[in-house]
């Protein structure tokens, strides 16, 4: 079985987000980059399938050379090889198109992604890749088993969950629960050393078409100073919520 895992390089979750002075772009200064946490669940699941079913795992990232440390980390976690599409992605569509172009000829049985990236939060790439490849798509997966040419995915739905059998090849977008947080793989020294010699193929993009542009960015405005209420005066808290905030 061949698995393709799509990974995105995103600011570390503890990053404060700033924008350039003219607000036209995200300010990358001082940012630590990590594998998108939701993609990490997908990657770990793929490595588990590699161990249990002898699958091969290829990671793909659409990004410029600055994303290579993150790709190497994915290799250290256990992917067999990697592809980087040499394009600083501008939107979900251009990213999905490049992933689909690589996947088209790769003969992958399963494409795994995180359900969204924690930077631009588009949540669009997995579904777009599926449609570009004319494959079935299961989003928000919190469980996955593969049995021959079929997969069984559990997806989260509002107020419950649903178990779906899917014909492969298919695209599955995962989230926390696809594997447990405690099962995420922290690369050991052997993994890090072997990642240095694993194949990382760089391919050029097939198109430059963009469908959505980020015109400008705003930070979240600060809240007014907190009003502290004594624990002995909860009537006052109830009054504030009822009369001032009008939320109860």
């Amino acid at each position, binding site marked *: 079985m061949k698995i393709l895992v799509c990974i995105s390089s995103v600011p570390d979750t503890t990053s404060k987000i700033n924008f350039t002075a003219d607000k036209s772009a995200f300010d990358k200064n001082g940012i630590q980059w990590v594998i998108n946490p939701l993609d990490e669940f997908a990657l770990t699941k793929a490595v588990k399938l590699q161990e249990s079913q002898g699958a091969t795992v290829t990671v793909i990232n659409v990004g410029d050379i600055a994303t290579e440390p993150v790709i190497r980390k994915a290799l250290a976690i256990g992917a067999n090889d990697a592809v980087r599409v040499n394009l600083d992605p501008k939107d979900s569509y251009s990213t999905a198109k490049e992933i689909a172009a690589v996947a088209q000829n790769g003969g992958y049985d399963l494409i795994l992604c995180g359900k969204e990236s924690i930077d*631009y939060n588009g949540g669009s790439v997995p579904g777009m890749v599926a449609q570009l490849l004319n494959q079935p798509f299961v989003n928000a997966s919190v469980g996955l088993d593969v049995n021959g040419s079929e997969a069984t995915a559990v997806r989260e739905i509002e107020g419950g969950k649903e*178990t779906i059998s899917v014909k492969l090849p298919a695209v599955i977008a995962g989230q926390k629960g696809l594997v447990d947080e405690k099962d995420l793989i922290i690369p050991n020294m052997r993994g890090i050393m072997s990642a240095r010699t694993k194949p990382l193929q760089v391919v050029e993009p097939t198109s430059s078409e963009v469908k959505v542009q980020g015109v400008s960015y705003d930070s979240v405005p600060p809240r007014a100073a907190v009003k502290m209420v004594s624990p002995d005066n909860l009537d006052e808290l109830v009054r504030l919520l009822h009369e001032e905030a009008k939320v109860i």
Partner: protein
Amino acid sequence: MAVFVYAENINGVYKKAAFEAVSYAKAVADQAGDTVTAISVNPTDSSDLLYKYGASNVINIKDEGLKSFSAKAFAQAVSEVADGNIIIFPHTTDASSVAPMLAIMKNYSLITNVLEAPESLSPFQVKRRAFSGKGFMHAKAEGTGVIVTVSQNAFGVKENAASGSEEVKNLSVANEDTKVVSHEQSSGKLDLKEAEVVVSAGRGMKGPENWGMIEDLANVLGAATACSKPVSDIGWRPHTEHVGQTGKAISPNLYIAVGISGAIQHLAGVNSSKTIVVINSDPEAPFFKSADYGVVGDAFQIIPALTEKIKAIKG
């Protein structure tokens, strides 16, 4: 500029997110000088519910093959009837699975997680959530066709009655690639993303056995319950309740955080809540800086007392 909107239902019953999406579509249609056509798949609810928020046409897709959800098949069905250049979806799990596939089918731009009515229609430009709630992006669509997904609880549900007409479309979309094996809906539980009030708790609760008081407060408020990441990681509460950067992003009217210190990743998921109340025994908890109201004290005394007081005013 015909405006279409996907009115999502669960087992035939329209979701609040559907009414919000229709309300949003009505605002866009008013801007465009056009009308709203709502599309629904196998609804049992009356179309009157959609006219109430501004839909003047409702297309009810009838298709036995779509009794259970498949992103691809639903996208195909919507594609067959959505004959407009603006298509609105709620940003629910199902709708945000359908929208990207539809965008490729139609060769339209897709802007997800939008928060406000568009800044302009031509080109289509709108404010959207980005950086997991730590920032906003003003996104511009290229080309003439655009699909948007509306972030839940952002635009609000707005009554705007229109007189409407209904059309039934019988389709039979191929749905062979996926099959729903089982479907579990927890009954009587409020959906966290739709909830207008959320009571959330963290490690300060000391153990899962103490969640009863959180649930009691939530019940009195008609609220959903949530938790911080460490709590779901330890297994005190299910993953589905984790709010934050790698969990769910929510925007309720009232968010009450009990025993949560307020890590930046947690704030990212909740800071678009309209009012935030923080209850924590540590006066230095960073969450107080992002709260509207704060109480320093022992949650085990405060929560039951607060529950009683709210019960009293709710009468």
